[in-house]
């Protein structure tokens, strides 16, 4: 048996130092929880306004600017309007599940934020010498907790789609959940390299491990994969297929109205904030000040309540990135989207994990060369490029092989040509058409 190789004593390893958590008196816990809840709701209201204004600017419009200064109260007005709308429960709906679904999608979205660090340990105002970490709680498996809670959020979508008793909702819900589980895998794999370097899954320990350098800089492929996966996971453009209006009306929330619809909306925006916060925590040094500022006056900006500012700025940067994507990229086709997730992101993530672990174990052995590392990185980079582009060529070849002469009256109905096809005048005979086409390509 292999067990004889290992002595029992090795198994108790040093755990993260989480002694500062779980010490707060109950009133402080309540205050923190309420504050997190309020920050998330206000941030959602702000983000909706922000999105509309930025997208408007990108499209040479002005955007909402009537209600309140700069139109900031627009989202609040929308919320109040929604509350005053009729609450429709369709006849075909499964009433209990129909009501449960929005709750199931909104609660996990909030819960994930319980382990996100907003800042270091600070003094509590209005008390003598009480200190507390700017984080609701932490646990040795904090990031796993976030993923597990996020996976519960899928139920809101599946059940919302099913319980409406409508075809569009069911299809939208299925599509949406298939999309989310596909990109959850890529997201989960992207985090492995971070755990490898931090040696922990606790969020505060991961932020501490980035004191010298942010993981986003040394683990660039992980960061890129995570960012792509987080856009897919939150169903945002260009991956907003569940809401493809032309195909599915509104997707899983087609039948929802009033505040129940608002809850789904809230969940979507809180989820955006959550994945951004996780990206900040795992890859961008969490609440730490960016480089030139962090050096000012012995790290003055990394203490007290300053870090909250950096943390929120980094989150807003990600939110802006989300909006920028929406303003720039057209929506993907569903098969392209799934193929990208399963055929590109996952093999690349696995290869990257193996590469990182190899480099790590080499450096743990000690006495190894920098050139070694660079060589390995070069090999990995080449492997990446091959994986990314080789598959694409294969598919193109397939597409070319499948290509048939374009028939403008397929099945007796006039159809427009696909992008790669050439429309031909109908009077031409097929042989003439093919000869002109070959001349054109030559």
């Amino acid at each position, binding site marked *: 048996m*292999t067990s004889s190789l290992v002595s029992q004593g*090795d198994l*108790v390893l*040093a755990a993260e130092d989480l002694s500062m958590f779980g010490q707060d008196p109950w009133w402080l816990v309540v205050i923190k929880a309420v504050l997190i809840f309020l920050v998330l709701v206000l941030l959602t209201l702000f983000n909706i306004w922000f999105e509309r204004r930025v997208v408007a600017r990108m499209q040479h419009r002005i955007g909402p600017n009537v209600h309140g200064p700069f139109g900031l109260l627009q989202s609040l007005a929308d919320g109040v309007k929604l509350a005053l709308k009729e609450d429709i429960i369709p006849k075909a709906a499964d009433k209990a*599940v129909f009501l449960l679904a929005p709750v199931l999608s909104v609660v996990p979205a909030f819960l994930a934020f319980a382990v996100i660090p907003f800042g270091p340990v600070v003094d509590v105002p209005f008390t003598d010498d009480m200190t507390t970490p700017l984080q609701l709680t932490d646990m*040795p498996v904090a990031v796993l907790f976030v993923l597990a809670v996020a*996976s519960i959020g899928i139920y809101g979508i599946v059940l919302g789609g099913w319980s409406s008793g409508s075809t569009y909702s069911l299809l939208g819900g299925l599509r949406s*959940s298939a999309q989310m589980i596909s990109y959850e895998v890529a997201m989960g794999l992207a985090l492995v390299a971070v755990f490898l370097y931090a040696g922990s899954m606790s969020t505060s320990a991961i932020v501490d491990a980035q004191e010298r350098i942010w993981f986003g800089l040394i683990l660039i492929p992980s960061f890129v994969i995570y960012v792509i996966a987080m856009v897919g996971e939150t169903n945002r453009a260009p991956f907003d297929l569940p809401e493809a209006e032309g195909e599915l009306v509104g997707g899983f929330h087609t039948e929802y109205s009033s505040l129940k619809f608002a809850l789904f909306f809230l969940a979507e925006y809180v989820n955006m904030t959550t994945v951004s916060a996780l990206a900040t925590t795992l890859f961008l040094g969490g609440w730490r000040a960016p480089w030139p500022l962090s050096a000012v006056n012995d790290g003055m900006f990394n203490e007290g309540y300053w870090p909250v500012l950096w943390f929120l700025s980094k989150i807003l940067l990600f939110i802006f990135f989300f909006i920028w994507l929406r303003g720039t990229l057209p929506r993907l086709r569903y098969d392209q989207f799934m193929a990208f997730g399963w055929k590109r992101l996952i093999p690349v993530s696995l290869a990257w994990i193996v590469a990182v672990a190899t480099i790590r174990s080499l450096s743990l052995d000690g006495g190894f060369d920098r050139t070694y590392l660079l060589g390995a990185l070069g090999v990995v980079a080449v492997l990446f490029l091959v994986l990314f582009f080789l598959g694409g060529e294969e598919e193109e070849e397939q597409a070319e092989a499948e290509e048939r002469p374009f028939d403008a009256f397929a099945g007796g109905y006039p159809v427009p040509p696909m992008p790669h096809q050439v429309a031909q005048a109908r009077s031409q005979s097929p042989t003439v058409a093919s000869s002109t086409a070959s001349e054109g390509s030559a």
Partner: protein
Amino acid sequence: MTVVEVLFLLLGLVAAGSALLVVTTRTMVHAALWLVVTLGAVAGIFLLLAAEFVAWVQILIYVGAVVVLLLFALMLTKAPTGPQPDLDARRALPAVAVAGLVLAVLGTTVVAGFHGVELDLDGAVVGSAQTTGATIFQQWVLPFEVLSVLLLAALVGAIVLSRGTGRRGGE
């Protein structure tokens, strides 16, 4: 009774009660949802017993993946909203007998294996990710590698079931 014991008892009752509802409810999707409650309660019990890592794995894998697969399968075949009268339990008696037998076997195993073992909940964390990792990758290497073969078999089985044999993908 301590707080932990009370919570343990409550979670156990929730798990057992919702398990009963899984087999008695008349709507298939509701059955799947009660199953989620059962699995969640079991995760809570793991958490109480300081098996933190396993608890969240239970949520991630069973609640987040296995039941989602179940729901997909239900929705893709037949799961109308509203109860289905044809979901009767004609073979209820044999089912109860088998369930009782499984309970007896599992109960005996647990009692025989862990009788009199006391868990120190306040001591060093035994269920953390580090300890779990070290145990799996140093003591239980063979089962771990065999598991990968099981996963392989599961995927091959899924493909064979859904695609049939002999035909190549993409024609």
